[in-house]
């Protein structure tokens, strides 16, 4: 009986050591594999208002995804996330129809991001936009 409990104790110790060893190996590997945060698409992005053509759109990297600013027919600027709310494709601005088309499953959105047709369940996310001295700042 004594031998058995001693064996069990040693077994637990060995098991504990194995678990500690596995954690010591897994922790750096998980850290290594975790995507590194970069600053290239920070919290805010600024560019000249002239970069947005009349009735056209400008796409840009924003917070690790893609954003878009469009100039509506009246000249008003609207900033939206360009990620389709259906399955995450990037929507395209169709200038002649003045709306967004998601080429993946034909979802359509108004210039304000509201769903017109197709499978998207939600409107495109609105992004805060400020225009000052001819410079557009999104974020």
């Amino acid at each position, binding site marked *: 009986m004594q031998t058995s409990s001693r064996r069990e104790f040693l077994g637990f110790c060995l098991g504990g050591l194995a678990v500690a060893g596995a954690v010591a190996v897994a922790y*750096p*590997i998980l*850290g*290594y*594999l*975790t995507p*590194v945060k970069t600053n290239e698409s920070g919290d805010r992005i600024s560019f000249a208002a002239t970069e947005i053509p009349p009735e056209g759109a400008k796409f840009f990297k924003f917070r690790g995804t893609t954003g878009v600013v469009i100039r509506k027919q009246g000249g008003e600027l609207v900033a939206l996330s360009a990620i389709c709310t259906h399955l995450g494709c990037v929507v395209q601005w169709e200038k002649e129809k003045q709306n967004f088309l998601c080429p993946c499953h034909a979802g359509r959105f108004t210039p304000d991001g509201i769903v017109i047709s197709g499978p998207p369940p939600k409107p495109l996310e609105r992004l805060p936009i400020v225009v000052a001295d001819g410079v557009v700042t999104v974020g």
Partner: protein
Amino acid sequence: MTPLKSIYHWLDVRLGLGELVEKHLTGYLLPRNINAWYSLGSVLLVIFGIQIATGILLLIYYVPDAEKAFKSVTYIMNDVPFGWFIRLCHAVGSNMMVAVLLLHMLSVLFMGSHKSPREMNWLTGFILFNLILGISLTGYLLPWSQLSFWATTVATNSVGAIPIVGEYLMTFLRGGILVGPPTLGRFFAVHVTFLPLAIGAFIVAHLFLLERIGVSTPPFGLGETKNNWQGDSFRYQSHPGGIPFFPNYLLQDMTSILIYLAIFLTVVFFSPYIFFPPTAFVPADPFKTPAHIKPEWYFLANYQTLKVFPNELLGLMVQGAAMTILALLPFLDRSKERNPLKRPLFLSCFAGGIILYIAMAIWGHYS
């Protein structure tokens, strides 16, 4: 029945696990006088496993493009969490692998384990040694540092000394007249695909031969130390009354592996740069050869041999001859005696060879 036992029983009735365990672990008997040197093969398997694992991890961030390679390695070292650790494990591990492999080969030679019927074990091992040198050399170029660039220039240049086909071979290896971006592409492909596959295949062959022929008996602590293989028919060398692999020798394997890991991690944590001269931290510049460029420690003897001989071809031929003799040793050294103390000629050559190799390497380092 506990869940673990249920799983074991489930597998046992389907695969005959008990029989496998009996045959390869508990009933796999080894010579009673087996020693710690026999565990170096297991240590090498662990090192190769670590190299594969860290190599796969490095592939995630490394960019094999001459414009970006150095930057990507710097990024791994400075910005990726634990990137320095993974990369240093890979770089230090490659040096340790060559060192342990040399020890493994020397111990095999010293104990006469390469003698018949184990010629093929020796040959596959010798080919593995060359493949490991090849994978170390090709990996050397990948960080695209001054050291990588010029060491590869010198190493590939030696091939050019071969008569008639030398120039063509050198251009073929480099993918151009000089070392450049095409060389990186070639070396990268060879380093991450061809060589690991070839090494894996030869490890399988090496282990198959070990399993099929049986473990040799060390020529120490016994009255009879002669090779008693007759050469008439195949027979597995069994060791009746020997010690079981599991748990007895596995414990020795684990001890050797842990001692190795202790040494390896000490180098990685406390002195990782013993294998990195300052030129390893400067990006490659094809217009500027750094002064006193030296190869890795395990090529220093070869480097010095090339310098000693006035003619590059002669230097290469001497090295080629030495390697050929080593490869064919079990076919040339046919005496039955295996105890080195009863083989004075062998022992003198063995000691002389090691001293010459070390002396040439030291000379190469300081020349």
